[in-house]
Structure formats: C-alpha cells, structure tokens
C-alpha cells in the first residue's frame, strides 16, 4: 500500500523517532494519519501498518478496536463528536448529543445520506473545563449549547 509522498515522508521520520526495536510505538500515529488520507482504517491499511511497524496484524486490529477515533468505515467529511462523559454530561452533554441526533437524523457513528456529516458520541476529550465540548474534525468547540450546535452544523452545510 502506498501513501502520498508527504505522508510517506512523515512515516519514514516517525519510524526513526522511537528507540531501536520499538517500531510498534508508531502504530497509533500511523493509523490516525493514514486514516485521514485513506478515509477509514481498512483491512489493507491494518496489514500495511502491521508490516511497517513489524507487529502481527492482530495487534494493530486491537488498537483499532480500542481507540474510538479510529474508524473501520468512512465517516463524513465533517465528523461531529459530542462528549457525554461525566463533566459534559452534568452540564447538558447528553441533551446536546440527542439534539444532534435529531437535527442530523443520524445516530452514533452514522453518516448523513449525502456523506457530508457524521456523528459520534465520544468519551472524554480532555476539555472538561469548557464542558460541554464538541469536536468537529480536529477543531474544539467549548461551552456548546443546542443553539450554538445548530449554528455550527448550519455553518458546515453552507461550507459544502
């Protein structure tokens, strides 16, 4: 499996960043960057990362199963992640998530029919001080209210 020259360069550097014999440390970053480029963690991608990091494919598979930010199926162009862990939950995280479900007409890890927006109920993102928090792709949004979420989603629709 080949990636873009930029990504290949990144991976080459990544594999030298860890101590001798610890290539497996590169599994998580490699998966995340590759997922952005490929669109999802496909079985071929798992085998490729396993080969590059010199671990059995099963160990890469375990990592994919463990981290919720790694997806086996492609998510939307905009991936909306709503936290419902304790801090966010206490200040309306669950209501926010349910609001998003209604607004988008999709559920957890589902994608809108046009493939543009996907939704995920995620665990703590480390933004408790600004709860409830929402992350869209790699951008954080703090103190989100249902109204603010509407605006954010509408903004995404316009941006298409």
């Amino acid at each position, binding site marked *: 499996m080949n990636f873009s020259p930029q990504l290949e360069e990144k991976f080459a550097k990544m594999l030298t960043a860890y101590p001798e014999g610890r290539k497996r440390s590169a599994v998580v970053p490699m998966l995340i960057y590759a997922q952005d480029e490929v669109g999802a963690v496909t079985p071929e991608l798992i085998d490729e990362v396993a080969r590059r990091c010199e671990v059995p494919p*099963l*160990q890469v*598979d*375990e990592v994919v*199963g463990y981290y919720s930010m790694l997806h086996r199926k492609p998510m939307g162009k905009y991936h909306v992640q709503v936290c419902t862990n304790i801090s966010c939950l206490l200040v309306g995280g669950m209501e926010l998530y349910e609001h998003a479900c209604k607004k988008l007409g999709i559920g957890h890890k589902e994608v809108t029919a046009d493939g543009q927006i996907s939704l995920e109920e995620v665990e703590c993102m480390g933004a408790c001080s600004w709860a409830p928090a929402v992350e869209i792709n790699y951008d954080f949004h703090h103190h989100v209210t249902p109204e603010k979420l509407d605006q954010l989603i509408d903004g995404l629709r316009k941006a298409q």
Partner: protein
Amino acid sequence: MAETVNLTINGQAIQAEKGALLIEVARQNGIEIPAFCYYEGLTLQAACRMCLVEVEKTPKLQVGCTLPVADGMVVHTESDTVRSARKGTLEFLLTNHPLDCPVCDKGGECELQDMVFRYGAGESRFTERKVHVDEQQWSPVVYFDAPRCILCYRCVRVCNEGMGVGALGVSNRGVISEIVPNRHDYLECDECGACIDICPVGALTSGSYRYQTRPWEMTHVGTICTHCGDGCRTTLGVRDDKIMRGNNRDHSGINGEFLCVKGRYAFDFVEHPERLQSPMLRVGDTFEPISWAKAFETIAETFTAVKARGGKFGIIGSNHTTNEENFFLQKFARQGLGTKNIDHHRTGDLGTFFDALSGKVDALATAGDLYTTKAVLVVGADLAQQHPFLSYQARANFRHHAAHIYAVTAGPVREDHQAVASVRVAAGGELGGVESLRDKLKAEGDLVIVFGDGIQGEGVRKLVAFGDSLGIPVKYVCLVDYSNSRGAFDMGLIPRDGGMSVQQMLGAKDLDVLWVVGANPLKNATLASPNAFVVVQDLFMTETARTADIVLPAASAYEKNGTVTNVCGEVQKLKQAVKVMGTKTDLEIMGSIAKEMKLNLGIWLPDKVFGEIRKTVQGYDVPLPVVDTGGAAPTMPLNGRVPALPGAIQSAGDTLFTSGSMSRYSKILNAVIESPGGLYRR
C-alpha cells in the same frame, strides 16, 4: 541471596528479596492472595482487581500482583476491607458472566466459582440485561464463549509469550471487549490449547472435551506423551476406560503445564475404529482372526525351527515402545534367537554423539538446562515444529533470563524472533554457519547446542570439537524424533557387532524371519526376501502389517506401564490409563513368545525388567525414588563408546501436526492441519 527486606503479612514477619512481588512473597510464605490475571511466568497485567490488599499507611487498597515488597511494609490480606473489596470485584465480574455453571465444562475446577464460594458474592445488585454474545468455534479444538470471559488476558499472554504465536488479542473496550482470534473469525496457530487450559473460567473450551464429562467424574492418570521425543508429562482424564482429555494442570513433570497439540489432544488414536483387537493370520491375500494361543504357537514353532537350522532373523524395534520392551526385545534377539540383526528407525546420530562425548561428564543437557543456560544454539532443526517443548523452554529462558538464542537453520524459524543471530544455511552447510558464530558464542557464560539429523557422523565430532574449543561449559542435545527413540538406542536396538541395519534387512534376499515390533519400515520401502516369515506387532494395519504373516494387536503407550527416555536422556515412567480390549503390551507378547519357545529370558514384568536395565545398561543406574514418584532421572552415558553402525539415520521430519504413522489415526491431528511448518518436513 540478593538484598532483602523485612515486612509483615497478616502479623507474620517475613523476609523477602527486595523488589519481589507481594503476591509471590505471600505465596511463598503460605498466604494466598487470590488473583485471576496474575499468572506466574507471564507478564503482569493488573486487570482483574482480585488481588487487592490493605497496606498500612497507604490510603487505598493496593494491587498485590504488581506491588514490590518494601522494608517495613505491613500488609493485611484477609481484613474485612479486603474481603469486601474482593466480594465487590466478584460481583462486578459476575455482572455479565452467565450463571451456567451446571452445564459449563469448567464447573468444579473453575477459579471464579471457587472465589465466589469463598467470598460469597451470591447475590447481585445488577438488574440490567446481561450482554450476550453467541458462542464461536475458532478451530476444531478451540471454542470461545464470550460472556463467560472475565478478560484476565491469560490466554492472550500465554499465546504471545509462552508459545510465541500471538494468535489471540482483545478487541474493543469496556463492556463489549472480547478476545479475538488472529484470522478474524478463526484461529491460525499451533492449536496447542494452552489458552483453554490457562483460562480461569469456561470461556475457552476444548473441542474434544466440551460437554463430555465433569472433572470429578474422571480419574487423572499422569503419564508421558507418546508422540515426539521431548517427554512431556500429560495427565489423562479417564472415565469408563476412555480418555476424555489430556492436560497438565498440576504442573507435574519436566514440562510444567506445557503441552502441544499432540500431548493435549492426540490421544484419540487409542480408540480409532481401525485399531487391531485380535491377532490375525495371513490366509492367501487376506487376514483371519486367530486366538492368542494359536498365534504364539505358530510364531514359536517358526522361530524355533529357523533358529535350529541357523536361518536368518531380522528384528526391527520401535521408537515408541518402553525401555523394558526394547531391552527385552534385544535380549530376545541376542540371547534367545542368537542374532545380531536388530535395529530401529534411527532419527539422530546418537552413536557418534555418545562416542564423541566419551569421558565427558555433564555434557548432556536436560530439558531444564534449556531454561537455565545463558545461551542456546539451535542447529539444523525447526524446534517449534519438531520439538515444541524444547522450543518453549528456550523461549521461556529468553523471556525470563534474557538468554541468548542462536539459530543456524535452512529457513526462518520461530527462534528468529528471540535470536541474537540467525544464520541461514543450505543443508550440509550447518557447521559453516556454526563456525561463523564462534566469536559471539565464545563470549557466552555457558551454552546448550541442540542439533538435528543434518549433523551426523564426522559432523557430530566436528560440532563437539567446536564446542570444546569455545572454552566455556557446553552441553548438547542430539535431537531424535519419538517418545522413546533415545531409549531404543540406549537399550541396544542397534546393529552392533556386525548386525544388519534396517536397510540391510529390507534389502536382503535371504531373510527367514522379519519381526517388527511397533514400527512401519515398509511405509515407503519393500521387503526383498520373498520367503521371510513376517511377524508384526502394532496398533494398526500399517503398510508393514499388511505384508505380515501374523499381526499381533499391541497396546499403545497409554495402555501400559514402563519407562521411556526422552530426547535429553531423561528417564520417566509411563502409567497405564486405559485398556483396549483384545490387545496386549509388547512386553507381554514377547514374554509369551519366549515362554512358548521355552526360552529363559527372565520375568517380563516392567519393574523386574527395569531392575535389570538399571544393573546392566550403561548410564541407567538412575535413582528409583525419582522415577517412581513421577520425576525425570537423567542418564549418564559415561565412556559411552559406540562403534560405527551401518544403516541410514534420518529424522522422519514430522511437524507439529504429524507423528509418523500414528498421526493418520488421530482425528484431531487430521482436523487441525493448517500450519505448514515444512522447513524440515519429509
């Protein structure tokens, strides 16, 4: 002893090695700290929370399995707080664990069941619906019932670390975490079943044992596996004269709990429908059942007549029969029949090996040495396929003691993963490969050299000379294939003093009698003598048995008492587990023929013959208490000068899933063949 610390556990003053784990220190002092995920010899997991203990001056309960002991530590392992924590942990573990103990295979020997009995989390506050996942079959021998799993990771670790296979993993997290096989929905692995044995609950179950019986309904017979030469002790669970399972959960024997697919599952040949259960006499092109009395009479008459007229005997012994049987057979040949033509399928050059070691003390490595030596050199063998226990020992040595492993082989082997250096050589180039490691090996503290059948004759002498020249203590293992290959050689099933080899016997045109005891020399060969009277003792109608005039149904190793000698020269005792109707042990068969011929070859009881072996066979003066109590007694072939022998030496080239002519009669071994492992396959 290294630096020590003083601590108190439950009011008991204890001195322990600094840095030792609390759970181990407690265990060594007779205090049990219960745990599911902690397992001696495997990496630490700290996943189950069962080993929580109270340490004074520490605010929270501590995890005993990862806590190193410290000076002045005061620990309570049975306080009310601890007991209630354990009860809570159990209640937690039981939230999704089904309460199907009455039908679960593990019921009665389940660690979770034991703990719930002890700490009594009989009532649950959990009212939600339990997560249920259907049972999965991963291979002919491995089934997985996810809801029973308590995620202790023992199976994952034993497969990864113990076996070096890494076929199991954990997918997802939280309540939907699940053990997964490496091929998505099935396993591609050694099929050893270690994961099943090590499972503290009934999540992983055995294809051949599941739903068959309850543990307390069986008697447990500790005997030695009859397949490869490693001499693993397998404890057979027997009910109603039927072997239900094989495992070694009591860690008895040299192998601890290790067993491969053959030791754990391949006992099923015992009840194969084609098992011979009556003596058979050739009538034209077919066989007719005859009585034992008639069979002995016919054989005795012919043997006596051929002996009287000075005819030619050829006798081929077995790699699987006991030392007693082999000893009796060669005595029968040499004293009873007056022939030197006795041999067996030799699978390693033990003759030259013993000769090369003449006068050396302590040059034979035991299976235990592979775990304690500083370095292991594997020459011309795929240990993981051919000698799985020796491979396991070297791997454990690498994990626990950072031993240096070297491999000189024809292709990739599992040892490469641990090896300091792997050298690839073509067949015949092994010694060159070994030479290239000289400087590295010289720097080792001590070394065990394990070599396959590619090294023979002068090659063995050169290898031993190489070992001598390193200037460090070197021990050796000359690999031989089967459960008593070593014993067959030691007992004298060899064509010394001008006797004929197997090949010479088969090639001779004037053989009057060919007597084959538990071997299949005609598998890929033909018998040149047209008029030879052929007697075969075997379990099955093998290619050789089909050419016989009389076939006698023999008992397998699981159906007899006696001793066998493993590849490392360690003598261990067999214990009869079952009886197959119609069969007799080879010793009884030979004794009966001798009696019929009116020969006086001594009493043919295993213990009596073993007594004679101890007195007369070089190196077999082993301590009886060791052997009698199920231990392994190393033999010492001092000055074992053996003259050069005629005949070929060749390993049968078995893999993990084959066992000579025997494997075709094991349903399990035929069901699981999937791993190629063909590096040295023939």
